[in-house]
């Protein structure tokens, strides 16, 4: 007698529970898996065992999030499975036959999203919980923006080039000035020498340097 009553109770509670799960349920979420798009040739077929894994993973997420509440696989109720591989689920509290609030479910799912994804070898794009936005990776903020580093290198090279050119111009100018000063001295000497040569020696066959140097000194 007792067994019959218990059996009836169980049946009715599961039926009751099943009633809670409807597409568009207020406390439920729709899940969509795109296994073939994600894994291509290595896609596995969706079957009862995979569904069991899903329910178990979700129960794990709910347990870990709400320490103390011992969620069972049977507390995750699934309905409206489609060939797309999408379905609705609701979570029933382990202690009462009340459904767990939508926000609590969402919090648990967001916290353990990567564990759930990992169980199915999928990512946020391929295992979608419609209505729960994925938490995107935080942007990487390096200390110095990378473009500044390359900029510094190029700018340094160009400025170095300009300085080298400027210095070489100045050095060339100094060298020319020294060269000119020397030439002037040489010219004076040769002029004196040639004059001397003319007065003291024969006047023909003297190589007069002053004329050959003329061109360098002529200003235009």
């Amino acid at each position, binding site marked *: 007698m007792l067994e019959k009553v218990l059996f009836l109770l169980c049946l009715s509670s599961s039926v009751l529970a099943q009633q809670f799960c409807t597409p568009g349920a207020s406390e439920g979420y729709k899940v969509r898996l795109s296994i073939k798009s994600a894994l291509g040739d290595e896609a596995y077929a969706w079957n009862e065992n995979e569904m069991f894994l899903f329910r178990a993973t979700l129960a794990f997420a709910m347990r870990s999030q709400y320490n103390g509440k011992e969620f069972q696989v049977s507390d995750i109720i699934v309905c409206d499975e489609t060939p797309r591989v999408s379905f609705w689920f609701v979570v029933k509290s382990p202690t009462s036959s009340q459904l767990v609030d939508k926000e609590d479910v969402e919090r648990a799912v967001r916290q353990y999203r990567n564990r759930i994804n990992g169980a199915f070898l999928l990512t946020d794009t391929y295992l979608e919980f419609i209505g729960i936005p994925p938490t995107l990776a935080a*942007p990487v903020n390096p200390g110095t923006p990378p473009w500044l580093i390359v900029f510094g290198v190029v700018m340094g090279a160009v400025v170095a080039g300009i300085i080298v050119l400027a210095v070489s*111009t100045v050095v060339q100018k100094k060298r020319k000035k020294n060269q000119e000063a020397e030439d002037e001295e040489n010219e004076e000497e040769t002029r004196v020498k040639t004059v001397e040569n003319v007065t003291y020696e024969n006047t023909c066959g003297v190589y007069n340097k002053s004329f050959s140097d003329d061109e360098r000194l002529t200003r235009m």
Partner: protein
Amino acid sequence: MEKGARPNWDNPMQFLLACVSYAVGLGNVWRFPYLCQMHGGGGFLIPYLLMLVLEGVPLFYMELAIGQKMRLGSIGAWTAISPYLGGVGLASVVTSLYLCLYYNIINAWSFWYLFNSFQSVLPWAECPVNSNRTGFIEECEKATPTQYFFYRETLDISPSIEENGGIQTNQALCLVLAWVMSYLFVVRGVKSTGKVVYFTATFPYVVLFIYLIRGVTLHGAVNGIKYMFTPKMEELAKPTTWINAATQIFFSLGLGFGSLIAFASYNQYNNNFEHQAIIVSLINSGTSIFASIVTFAIYGFKATFNYEGCLERTRLLLLNTFSLAEDSVTMANVFEWIEKLNTTYPQQFAELADKLETCDLEVELDTAVEGTGLAFIVYSEAIKNMPLSQLWSVLYFFMLLLLGMGSMLGNITAIITPLQDFKMFSRMSTELFNGIVCLFCLLFALAFTTKAGNYWFTIFNDYGATFSLLFIALIEVISVSYIYGIKRFEKDIEDMLGHRPHWYWKIMWAVVSPLLIIAIFIFYIVNYIMGGTPTYQAWNKELGKTVVTEYPIFGQVFIGLLMVSSISCVPLTALYVYCRKRKHGHQRRQRTVSTVSAQ
């Protein structure tokens, strides 16, 4: 080195490469493919090549001849032709100044994109995450990541030209680098420029060739190339096609800026510029065609990528709405499924109607873009989808940089050479003078790095040079043919080259080119008047796209000033010279009178 001797190119090859480097610029990459696409693909080559022969090469030849003969910059050369025409040279200098001011901003952007390519993920490949990490930034979602990167992270553009905002440090830094590098290239005048052009003229071809190979092997490139080469002959009947071909040849060769005169003035007297003129013009046009093959291959890839993305999104939409098994709808049978579902579930399908996009490859290929939009948005979008995108990005922006820098060399030389002909500036050392010019341009160009800077850039780009160049070129060809005289010009050329120019050239100079330029000129004026208030594309943050906005009053006044300021140099200088001659004439007459009376 004597102070008075004019510096020379080390060899004729340097001069040739300098002309190639100057003429082959960004316009070959981003304007010609656009025109090709707008005017019926392969068919556009007919008016283009015709205009090259009728207008491009003769004017190019003429400018080189003037420069090599007079051995002075544009102001001095035109004053030598006729004292009243010095204003033409001055107008060239003013136009080149405007060009220098805004052109280096493009090089600054090329630097910015180049430096940003050295990252593991290209910053324009994905949208940045928003503050609470639930999704992407809204502006980026509405537009595309490449557009967001250009308008927001590069320019930080304001919604209209009236809102000015401050100077953007990242752009300002890149602009300073661009100017410092330009100074490094021109610091010693032709001695330094001559060495740089070996690289800036040849390396872009290496990159273009690499890109050609990469481009044609991309998935879907064939679609683009097929699209380009299917000529639409009916476009040839439209006059705008011919006008655009003429204008493109004109601006692509860089006529009227005075750069060619400046470059040629450093030549040896007997340099064979006739061959060089033909070679450079052919290389320039050849590069345009080559670049457009590459561009169309990239277009084809991008269009196919977008088309297949559209198909994929449609497929997912169908799968999710009708909960069909994943492998039932593939990209190949999307359209069949749409038909099937439309008939079996008409009501549900109707609800989908606004989310369903129409995927059409032709439409994707038809989106023609030109200018900075093509170079920085469309190309970077295509690059981010290529495997090893960082490498391709670096190569591409480096090529853009070289093309831009090569043209800048010509622009800066066009300002420096005529000014150095004046005694007042020739006493300064070349390095100091070039430095002052570069610094001056840099300080002014900082205005383009403000938040509204891009809008001012567009004003300069659209109105700064186009109108004045046509005017200058018209005056040039008429004065050489009729004021200086074709006979005198012939003799000068015979003096330099050793033979008279062929009668073909003489007919072009005297008759055909002036008529062509007058036709383009009239067309421009008519277009400007009939176009109503000039408008620009302002970036709208909320919509995530550009909207057509009218220029405010001060903008229109500024446009008018820009156009008038360079053109007015011609009559004003003529007037000034006339007044001075009258005054001198008076003084001389007075003196002769007094000496006569003294006798």
